[in-house]
C-alpha cells in the first residue's frame, strides 16, 4: 500500500489505482465526468484536475488530470490548491457555455451529476455572452428520451454503448464544438442495454422515457432496495414509488451480481406493477357478490383447507417465503412445483450437480474475472442478458490483461488499453441452437441441434480428461472443433462454463458438468453456471418438490381436492389441453396472483398478491444466492399483500418475515443462512430506522389533499428496519438495506462511490446476499457417461425448440408498453434448406400439428439453423404453449 500526501497529510492508498479513484476512495470530493469506475479513464473532460508536486521544494507544481495519473509511493498532490480549484471551476464554466439553463424542466434535475459538479466547483456566474449552440433531437424508441442540447460531450454514452454493451447503432458524429451523440438516423436503439444510458449520462441528454410518462423528481420518490423479478440472475435494483405507482427502476450496485448495469427488460419491465390488469380484490366466485372482505375470505379458506384433501402449487416467480408458507399450509408432501415435468426434471439435474459441491457455482463476478468461457447450449443474450454483458466484459478484460502485461500499462487507462488491444479478444466459445449477438465476440461459435451440442460437450471433456472414453470417431465438423475448444479451456487459469435448461436437453447440462469437472481435475479454478427461467426458479427447485403433473394421479383418486396455486399461470407451463385436463381434475381452485391470467380465470377463490414492489421476500438466483427484496411502499389497497402473508393468515401463522426465516431454516436446511441475508426488522442505527424517502421529500402533507386534508399516519413496517417516511438515519446503512444513493453534494447516482469500499469495489461492509450452494472443500465427482446419439433430421417431422426473446418472452415484463412494442410477432423458423424443400418462403403460413391440433405461424428463414429443427418464440402472450423438445409435424398451408 503506497502512501501519498494529499494537501500535506499522508494517506495509504491501494496500489495500481489512479489518483482520482484514490481520492474518491478516501472520501474526498473531486469532480469528474468522463471517468467511470466500470469504464476507466480517458482524460477527455479535464474536470478532475489536481496539482502534483515533484518534491518538498516544488511549490509551483503542475496540473494533472487525476484520472490519468497513477498512484506512486510518496506522490504529493493538492486538491485545494487555488490553481487546481480555479481550473476545475473553469471547466464547468466552459461546459455551461452551451448547456441550457433548463434544470426546472429537465428530467435529470435533482439527480444530475452536472448540477452536483457545478455546485462542487463553485461556478455560479456566467461570463459567456454569446449564443448557445443547439441541436436537433432524435426519436430513440420507447425507452430513452434524447435531448442533445444538454450534452457536455463527456463521451460516456458511446463508450458505454459501444465498448461495454457492444452496441453499434449509437455513435459520435462531427468534430470540434459540433460533436453530436445519437444514431445515424432516428430510430429504436438496438441494444437491449440501452437503458443504462440514462444512468451513464451525467446530464439530461439520455433519460428514462418511461419515467417521463409519470415523472417524479428523485427526491420525491419512496424507494427500497429490490431484486429484479424478470430472470434468474437476480440483478439488484432500486424501485421508486410516488402516488402508489412504481415510477422507475434504477441499478442497485452489487459487485458480485450486476455491478453497474441492468438490461432493458429489468429496467423497463416494471409497468406490470401499475397495470390495469392487477388483481385488487379477494373474490369467491359463484356467490351473489364475488368480492369479499378479508374476514369472509379467511373464514371460507380456513374451512376449505381444514379437511386435509389439499395440495399446493408453488411458483418460480413467487418468493422463497411464499413457497414455504404454502408448503407449510398444505403439508410438505402435498406441495408441488409450479413447473412442468420437463422443467422440474432439468432443474433437479441442475440442483443435484450444484448441491453435490463438486463445482463452484459461479457468480457474475466470477464470470467476469474468468479468462476463458464456454457457453454450452444456452442463449444467454436472451435468457440471462446481464450474464451476456458480463461475458462480454470478461472477454474484453482477458484480452486487456494480456496486452497490458506487455508494456505494463495500468488497466484503468482505458483509451490506451483499447488502442493497444485493438481487435484482440479473450477466449469465448458459444454453442447454441440459434445464433447470438455474442457470436461476434466469440473465437468459436457453433450452431447445432441440442444433442449435438451435448455430444460436443462430452467430446470436449474427453479431450480434457484421458479417463473418459473418446468419441468413437470424428463424426463431423462439430467434433473436429472440440479439440480447439478443449485446448483453449485447458490453457486458461480460470475457465468458466455456462449452460442452462432453455434448450430442453438434459445431456447438455451433463456435458457442461463433465467439462467443468475435467477442468477442475486439471487444477483449474473453474466454475459453472446454469441459467434457469425465472427469478426464483432456483429457490423453487431447491424445495425438491415434484412437478405438479405428478399430482395428477392423486387428483384422479381423491376427487374434490382443493388446489392452491401461488403465483403461477398453469397455462404457461402446459399446452392448453393438458392444462384444461389438469384443472378438470381439481376440486376447489384457489389462486393467489399479481395479474389476471388464464389460471386466475379458473380460480374459485382469487386472492391478490403483492408484486415485488409491494412486498417483502427473497429470491434465490441461478447462482444459489438468496437475496432480499423490500417493500417499496404500502399500497392504499390493503388487500394487496404478500402471498406468504395471506398464506400465513389462512394458516393462522406468523406474519413476521424474521420468524418465518427461522422456520424456513428449521424446515429446509438447504436455505440455511436466509435469516442472515439482511438485518432483522428490529435493527436500528442510533435508534433510528432507515428512511425510504430522501430528506428532501416534498409535499407529504399536501400530496393526498385531494382525498383527505389530514396527513395520513405513516405505515409501520414490521418486516424491515426501514421507515416509510423521510425521517430516520441519514448516513450510510448496511448494504442490504440501502434504499437509494445519496450523499451530501452527490445527488446523482454517482453518490454510489460513497457506499463502496473503493470506487467500483464492494459495498462497504460487504455485498448483500447469502450463497447457499457452495463448493465442498474436498470435492468428489464422477463423470456422466451416457452420451446421446447424434441428432439426425427426420422426414416430415421437426424437433421443436423455443427461441427466447429478451423483450417478449417474459410474462410480467410484457405488461410494459415499450417492451410489448418491441417484442416480435409469432413466427416459425426453419432452415433455408428445409424451407426450400417444402417450397416455402419467408412469410409462408406453416402449420404445426401437435396432438391433433394445428397451429398456423408465418415462416422465418433462419439461414444458420440446423436442418430438422423448428424454432418458435417462447412465452409470447399470443403464442400457444407448445411441447418444446418434442418432434412435431409441420406442413405448408
Amino acid at each position: 500500500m503506497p502512501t501519498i500526501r494529499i494537501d500535506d497529510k499522508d494517506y495509504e492508498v491501494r496500489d495500481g489505482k489512479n489518483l482520482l479513484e484514490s481520492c474518491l476512495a478516501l472520501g474526498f470530493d473531486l469532480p469528474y465526468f468522463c471517468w467511470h469506475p466500470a469504464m476507466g479513464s480517458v482524460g477527455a473532460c479535464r474536470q478532475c484536475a489536481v496539482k502534483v508536486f515533484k518534491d518538498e521544494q516544488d511549490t509551483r507544481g503542475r496540473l494533472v488530470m487525476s484520472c490519468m495519473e497513477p498512484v506512486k509511493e510518496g506522490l504529493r498532490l493538492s486538491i485545494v490548491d487555488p490553481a487546481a480549484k480555479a481550473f476545475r471551476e473553469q471547466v464547468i464554466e466552459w461546459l455551461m457555455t452551451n448547456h441550457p439553463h433548463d434544470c426546472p424542466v429537465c428530467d435529470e434535475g435533482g439527480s444530475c451529476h452536472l448540477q452536483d459538479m457545478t455546485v462542487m466547483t463553485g461556478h455560479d456566474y456566467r461570463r459567456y455572452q454569446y449564443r448557445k449552440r443547439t441541436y436537433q433531437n432524435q426519436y430513440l424508441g420507447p425507452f430513452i428520451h434524447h435531448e442533445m442540447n444538454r450534452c457536455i460531450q463527456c463521451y460516456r454514452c458511446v463508450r458505454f454503448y459501444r465498448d461495454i454493451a457492444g452496441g453499434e447503432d449509437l455513435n459520435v458524429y462531427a468534430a470540434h464544438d459540433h460533436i453530436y451523440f445519437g444514431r445515424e438516423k432516428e430510430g429504436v436503439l438496438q441494444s437491449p442495454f440501452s437503458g443504462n444510458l440514462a444512468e451513464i449520462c451525467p446530464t439530461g441528454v439520455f433519460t428514462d422515457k418511461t419515467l417521463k410518462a409519470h415523472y417524479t423528481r428523485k427526491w420525491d420518490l419512496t424507494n427500497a432496495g429490490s431484486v429484479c423479478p424478470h430472470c434468474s440472475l437476480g440483478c439488484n435494483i432500486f424501485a421508486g414509488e410516488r402516488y402508489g405507482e412504481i415510477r422507475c427502476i434504477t441499478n442497485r450496485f452489487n459487485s458480485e451480481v450486476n455491478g453497474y448495469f441492468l438490461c432493458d427488460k429489468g429496467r423497463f419491465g416494471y409497468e406490470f406493477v401499475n397495470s390495469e390488469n392487477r388483481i385488487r380484490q379477494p373474490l369467491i366466485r359463484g356467490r351473489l357478490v364475488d368480492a369479499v372482505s378479508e374476514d369472509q375470505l379467511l373464514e371460507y379458506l380456513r374451512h376449505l383447507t381444514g379437511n386435509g384433501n389439499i395440495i399446493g402449487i408453488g411458483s418460480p416467480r413467487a418468493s422463497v417465503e411464499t413457497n414455504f408458507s404454502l408448503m407449510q399450509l398444505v403439508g410438505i408432501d402435498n406441495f408441488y412445483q409450479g413447473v412442468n415435468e420437463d422443467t422440474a426434471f432439468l432443474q433437479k439435474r441442475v440442483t443435484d450437480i450444484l448441491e453435490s459441491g463438486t463445482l463452484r457455482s459461479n457468480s457474475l463476478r466470477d464470470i467476469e474475472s474468468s479468462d476463458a468461457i464456454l457457453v454450452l447450449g444456452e442463449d444467454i443474450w436472451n435468457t440471462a442478458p446481464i450474464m451476456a454483458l458480463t461475458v462480454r466484459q470478461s472477454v474484453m478484460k482477458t484480452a486487456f490483461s494480456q496486452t497490458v502485461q506487455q508494456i505494463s500499462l495500468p488497466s484503468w487507462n482505458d483509451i490506451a488499453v483499447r488502442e493497444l488491444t485493438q481487435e484482440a479478444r479473450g477466449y469465448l466459445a458459444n454453442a447454441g441452437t440459434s445464433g447470438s449477438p455474442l457470436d461476434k465476440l466469440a473465437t468459436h461459435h457453433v450452431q447445432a441441434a441440442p444433442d449435438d451440442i451435448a455430444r460436443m460437450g462430452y467430446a470436449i471433456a474427453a479431450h480434457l480428461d484421458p479417463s473418459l472414453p473418446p468419441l468413437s470417431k470424428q463424426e463431423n465438423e462439430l467434433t473436429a472443433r472440440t479439440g480447439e475448444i478443449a485446448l483453449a479451456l485447458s490453457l486458461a487459469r480460470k475457465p468458466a462454463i455456462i449452460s442452462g435448461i432453455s434448450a430442453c436437453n438434459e445431456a447438455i447440462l451433463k456435458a457442461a458438468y463433465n467439462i467443468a469437472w475435467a477442468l477442475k481435475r486439471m487444477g483449474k479454478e473453474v466454475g459453472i453456471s446454469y441459467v434457469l427461467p425465472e427469478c426464483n426458479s432456483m429457490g423453487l427447485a431447491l424445495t425438491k418438490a415434484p412437478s405438479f403433473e405428478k399430482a395428477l394421479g392423486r387428483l384422479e383418486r381423491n376427487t374434490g381436492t382443493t388446489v392452491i396455486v401461488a403465483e403461477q399461470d398453469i397455462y404457461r407451463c402446459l399446452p392448453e389441453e393438458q392444462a384444461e385436463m389438469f384443472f378438470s381434475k381439481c376440486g376447489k381452485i384457489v389462486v393467489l396472483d399479481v395479474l389476471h391470467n388464464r389460471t386466475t380465470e379458473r380460480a374459485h377463490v382469487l386472492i391478490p398478491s403483492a408484486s415485488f414492489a409491494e412486498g417483502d421476500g427473497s429470491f434465490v438466483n441461478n447462482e444459489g444466492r438468496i437475496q432480499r427484496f423490500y417493500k417499496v411502499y404500502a399500497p392504499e389497497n390493503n388487500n394487496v399483500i404478500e402471498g406468504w402473508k395471506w398464506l400465513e393468515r389462512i394458516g393462522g401463522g406468523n406474519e413476521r418475515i424474521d420468524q418465518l426465516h427461522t422456520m424456513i431454516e428449521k424446515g429446509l436446511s438447504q436455505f440455511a443462512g436466509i435469516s442472515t441475508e439482511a438485518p432483522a426488522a428490529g435493527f436500528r442505527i442510533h435508534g433510528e430506522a432507515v428512511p425510504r424517502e430522501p430528506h428532501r421529500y416534498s409535499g407529504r402533507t399536501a400530496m393526498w389533499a385531494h382525498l383527505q386534508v389530514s396527513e395520513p399516519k405513516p405505515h409501520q413496517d414490521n418486516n424491515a428496519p426501514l421507515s416509510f417516511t423521510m425521517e430516520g438515519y441519514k448516513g450510510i446503512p448496511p448494504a442490504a438495506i440501502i434504499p437509494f444513493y445519496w450523499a451530501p453534494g452527490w445527488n446523482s447516482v454517482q453518490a454510489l462511490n460513497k457506499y463502496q469500499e473503493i470506487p467500483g469495489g464492494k459495498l462497504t461492509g460487504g455485498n448483500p446476499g447469502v450463497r447457499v450452494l457452495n463448493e465442498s472443500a474436498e470435492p468428489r465427482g464422477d463423470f456422466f457417461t451416457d452420451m446421446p446419439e447424434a441428432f439426425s433430421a427426420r422426414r416430415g417431422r421437426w424437433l421443436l425448440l423455443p427461441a427466447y426473446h429478451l423483450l417478449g418472452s417474459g410474462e410480467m415484463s410484457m405488461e410494459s408498453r415499450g417492451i410489448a412494442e418491441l417484442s416480435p410477432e409469432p413466427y416459425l423458423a426453419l432452415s433455408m434448406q428445409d424451407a426450400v424443400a417444402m417450397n416455402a418462403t419467408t412469410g409462408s403460413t406453416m402449420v404445426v400439428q401437435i396432438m391433433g391440433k394445428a397451429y398456423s405461424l408465418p415462416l422465418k428463414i433462419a439461414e444458420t439453423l440446423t436442418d430438422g429443427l423448428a424454432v418458435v418464440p417462447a412465452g409470447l402472450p399470443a403464442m400457444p404453449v407448445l411441447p418444446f423438445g418434442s418432434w412435431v409435424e409441420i406442413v405448408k398451408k
Partner: protein
Amino acid sequence: MSQNKADTNASIQQPSSAKPGGTELSVAERALIDHEISLVPYRKAAVIEALKIVQQNRRWVSDESLDAIARYLDMNAAEVDSVATFYNLIFRRPVGRHVMLLCDSVSCYIMGCTELYRSLQQRLGIEFGHTTSDNRFTLLPNCCLGCCDHAPALMIDDDLYRDVKPMELEGILKHYE
C-alpha cells in the same frame, strides 16, 4: 415484423434485400476497397479508404452509399458515419460539379483572401458551404493549402491556383463548366 422492432435473435433474418444500382457498391469500387482491405489487419480499418473511393466515384457519400460501405465492411452505418462526419473532405451532402476550396488561413488572410472571398461570393452568388443553383460550384473554406509564399491560394478540384487576385477569377472559373 416492423423495422422498428429490435430483433434479438441474430440468426433469424430475412434474406438480404440487396437492391441493384446506387445502393450497392460497384464491382470497380469493391475491387479498389478489397485492395485496401488487404493492406490492413482488419476489415473496418479500410473505412476511410472506402469512403474516399466511393466519393471519388460518386462525388459525395449519400446515405445509401454509406450503408453500402457499412455492409461491405461489416460495420454499422453509425460507425461509418461517425468517421465520415469527422473529416472535412468527406462530403455527406451533394456537391456541385466542381469543389472550390478557398484557403482562409493566416497567410492568405494577410494577403487578402477576404477580398477574394467577397469577390467569389459576388460572382457565384453563394456563401461558404453552398452550391451554385446551376450545380456548377460548391464553395468551401479550407485550412492552409501550404502555399503561403504564394498567397492567397485557391483549389478547384485538383487544380491549385496561387497568388490569386480577384480580377483573375473570371479567367480561372472559365475552365470549369
